[in-house]
Structure formats: C-alpha cells, structure tokens
C-alpha cells in the first residue's frame, strides 16, 4: 500500500504539486490525467525519487520512502520500476543487455562494471522479453527498434526488476495507436496476472477509462478528481481539463481506438524512423 501524506514539489517559485494526500492499495491500476503542466510527471517521478519531494511524506507498507538514502533509495527504485515516454533505453547496447540492466541492483561493483551477467539472468531476461513478444530481437542493437518495440523492451527491463509497483510516465504518448494498444495491454496484463500496482500517466481520456481501475485527475498541481473509471464522466473530465477540454477530447477520440479485448497483431508494424 502506497500512501502520500501532503506530498509537495516546488521548483523555485513554481509549485508543481500542491500537498497531495492519497492512498493506493496493492494491485490497483491507476491512471493519472490532466493537461500539460498539471504536475503528473512530477508526481510520478517523486514516487521513485527521480524528483526530490520538497515537503510531505510517502509511505510504502508503512516504510518512509521520502527519507531513504544511498543503497536503501536504490533498493526502493529497484522495487518500483518505471517506464518512460521516451523509453530511456541505452540505444547503443543490445536489447538483452538493456533488459538485464534491470538486475544491476543485485550486482556487485566489479560484475556490473565489467558487464558480466549470469546465465540465469540471461534466461530470465529472455523470458521477460518473450512475455512481451520481443525475444527474437534480443541481440539487436536497441536503437534499431521501432518505438513500440522499444517500449516493450523497456517494460521487459522493468519486469526483470521484479518490482512491486510499476510507474509509467505517458508510456504511449510517442506511439501510434496499434503500438499504444499493445503496450497498454501489456501493462494491464502485468497488473492483472502479477498483481502489480500500476500507476500510469496518460494524456488521453479513453485510454484511462478503458484500462484503469481508478483515475486521478490533476489540475495545476492539485488532485481535483479521484474515482473509478465509471465515475469519470464527460462533465468531470471537462472540469479536469478546463479551458483545453475540447482539444483534449478531440485528441482522446483519435487515440487508442481499439478495445482492450481485441487480439493484437502478432507484430506491430515497424515504424520507419
């Protein structure tokens, strides 16, 4: 169980996240929506402390996350994996090494610097890739993959961390609808099959409605909506998006047009980059 107690973040004179109090039980799939600059990324990145909170407290199963330092902090980051909008993979390394890097926390200094991974880790990484239908690319250089493929590799890297929580910061914002669907399906599957808590920033309404158990709406750093997907009516959404509502809606309509139940294509079409 993840608890926020008055968590805030301030950049100089700009308060990005105003005191947020929130409880997220284990195994929930949470979507955070809100317009650009609302503070979604900041909130998410405070959870694994890529952004340092400026006030308040965060507890995970009663453990104070905000106070962690050094190795404890890195262990916490290892426990809550993160998937990024731009994938944040190491483009010049092969896919397998990128995935195995998810296990670096368990390495000693020498083996990690020398890039030595055990056969067990390799088998595990291949299994994670396989789960996302990417095992055949294991030896490819990562920057030769398409965006959708990279995001799936990034999810595989997150999975080999054996995390308790999965954070995803707009995981589908740079993907085409088909790839977006593949990625969202994967996240949902992880949530349902592994029982992982998934907290996901989304910029499209219908994705949040389709995939999430619970939706949190942010506006100017304040949580203005917190409820189930059903409760997220168009009226509620309009309030979250404020003046930009129309834009957000038209965007929402054109995004993930496939329904969660549909069978994904065996291999998403390669995006020419």
């Amino acid at each position, binding site marked *: 169980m993840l608890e926020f107690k008055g968590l805030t973040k301030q950049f100089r004179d700009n308060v990005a996240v105003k005191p947020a109090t929130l409880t997220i039980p284990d195994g929930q799939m949470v979507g955070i929506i809100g317009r650009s600059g609302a503070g979604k990324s900041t909130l998410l990145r405070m959870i694994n402390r*890529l952004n340092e909170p400026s006030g308040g407290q965060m507890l995970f199963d009663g453990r104070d996350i905000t106070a962690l330092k050094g190795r404890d902090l890195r262990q916490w980051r290892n426990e809550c994996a993160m998937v990024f909008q731009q994938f944040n993979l190491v483009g010049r390394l092969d896919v397998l090494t990128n995935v195995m890097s998810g296990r670096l926390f368990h390495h000693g200094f020498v083996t990690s610097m020398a890039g030595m991974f055990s056969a067990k880790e390799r088998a595990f990484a291949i299994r994670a890739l396989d789960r996302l239908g990417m095992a055949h690319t294991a030896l490819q250089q990562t920057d030769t993959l398409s965006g959708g493929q990279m995001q799936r590799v990034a999810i595989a890297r997150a999975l080999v961390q054996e995390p308790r929580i999965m954070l995803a910061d707009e995981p589908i914002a740079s993907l085409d609808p088909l790839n977006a669907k593949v990625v969202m399906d994967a996240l949902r599957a992880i949530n349902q099959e592994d029982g992982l808590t998934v907290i996901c920033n989304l910029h499209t309404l219908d994705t949040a409605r389709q995939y999430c158990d619970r939706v949190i709406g942010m506006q100017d750093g304040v949580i203005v909506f917190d409820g189930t997907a059903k409760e997220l009516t168009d009226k509620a959404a309009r309030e979250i998006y404020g003046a930009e509502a129309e834009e957000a809606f038209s965007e929402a309509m054109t995004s993930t047009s496939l329904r969660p139940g549909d069978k994904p294509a065996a291999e998403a079409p390669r995006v020419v980059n």
Partner: protein
Amino acid sequence: MADMSQTPGGQDPVALFERHRAQLIRDRMTANLLLLALFIGFLAWSIWIADFMPDRLASGVPRIFEYFGSVMPSFDTDVLFDGRNAEGKFPPGSIGFWYNDFWKYITLIWETILMALTATLLGTGLAVVLSFLAARNTTPAGWVGTIARRFLEFCRGVPEILFALVLVFWVGIGPLAGVLAITIHAAGALGKLFSEVVENASMRPVDGMKAVGGSWFEQMRYGILPQVLPNFTSYALWRFEINVRASAVVGFVGAGGIGTELSHTISFYSDDRVTAVLLLVVLLVTAIDLLSERARHSLIGKEALK
C-alpha cells in the same frame, strides 16, 4: 496611386540607401584602419622585444646555413653501402658510418613508443573518470565538478616538459618522469574533450538507469559510456600521436626516450649525427601519424555504416 519610389519621409530610397551605405563603409574603414594600426604597433613592439633586429639577423642567418651545412651527411657513392671493414668500422661516406649508432637509436625509439603508449593508456583512463566528474550533467555534486574542472585546466595548461622537469627532480632521471608527465598532461587535455562529449550525450538512458536502482557508477557505465565510447576512442588515438611527439622531447630535461640522446647530440656535436637522429624522429612521428589516422578513419567508417 502612391509613388512607389518615395518613402513616407519624402526622400528618394536609392539616395537614402547610398548615404547609409557610405556611412557604413566609412565606419568599417575607420575600424579597420584602427585595427591595422594596432596590429602594426604590436608587431613593431614584438620585433623590438624579441630582439629580432637586422643586425642580429645579418650575423645569425649565415650561421644557420653554415650549421645546416655541417650537420648534413656527406656520401661517397663508391662506399655508400659498404659494411664494416677489417677494423670493424664503417668507411666514412657510407650509410653505415652515418648510422653508426643505429641500434642504440632504435632501442631509444622503442622506449619512446612504450612511454607514449603507457602514458596514453593511463591518461585516457584518468580522463574518463575525471570527465564524468567534471561534466555538468553527470557530476555527482556541484563542488566536485568545479574541482574536477579546475584540476583538468591545470593539467592541460602546464606543458608536459614542465611536469617532466619537476618529476625528474622527484623520481630521478629516466623514463618514469616522462611517462608520468605525459600522463598528467594527456589526462587534462583528454578530460576536457571527453567532458564536452559527455555534456552532449543524452541523459535519458541515465534516467533509465537511475530508475532501475543503479548507482552513479552504473548510471555512467550503462547510461553514458556506450554513447560516448566511439568519440573517446578516436580522441585517445589522436592523443597517442601527440604523446609520441611529447615523449620524443621530454628527454630534453632527462625524462627518458630518444629526447635525451637528441638533446645530447645536438648540444655536443655539430656533425652528421644530428641529422641521423633527427631523421629517425621525423620518420617515427610521421609513421605514427599515418597509422593512427588510418585507425581513426576505419573507426569513423565503421560508425558511419551503422
């Protein structure tokens, strides 16, 4: 319909433009004349301070030709390729006579290359670590970065041979002083270049490695190093060329390599031995330049194919 050739002020635009242009040219001319005067003044001052005076030149220049005449080898076509004679000596006028100390030179050149190689390896290693500390985007703390940058500036600001001078006092005459001196200077020069490369690298993979729970070392090793490695390699190769040149001269202050022999020969003899050593040094430097250029090009070629 308004007359298109008239500006609102009622002036002819062509005349206006011409006036403006003339003004600009005048301004430029004055600035350039001023700079020219400064330049000539500085040149005159320099000539005076550097004592580059006609009388000095008049007495000096003939001596240059005299000197170069005396250090040129003189060949005798009859005995050019002759071996040692009965007394075990080469006949004057043969190549053997010119290169009587050939094997001594070769040994020293070998030592020179080893010095450069060791210094390049050590210097590159140091530079890699220091550049990650110095680069603004990867430095673990602001003050560490400042200290690392100042340190690098110092290392590359002081010439190798000055470090060598000091180190010879410390560790004594011999190649160790040279190796260390070149290592320090190379670390400074490469560290600066490397840190610029690091500052241009994408930070996304670093964020990725951070989120995985990686330590600072792991963030650098996996997030940055793969991005910058090709650049690092080509800079290091290029530095090897420079280090070969450097290790050929640190011997001037007793820090090993062919330089000691070179300075000794030039200082104490004015015969064909001078050109013998000099020629070998030129050959060494040119050969290393060529080799490393080849290596760099094939490296870049490989990168471009990807």
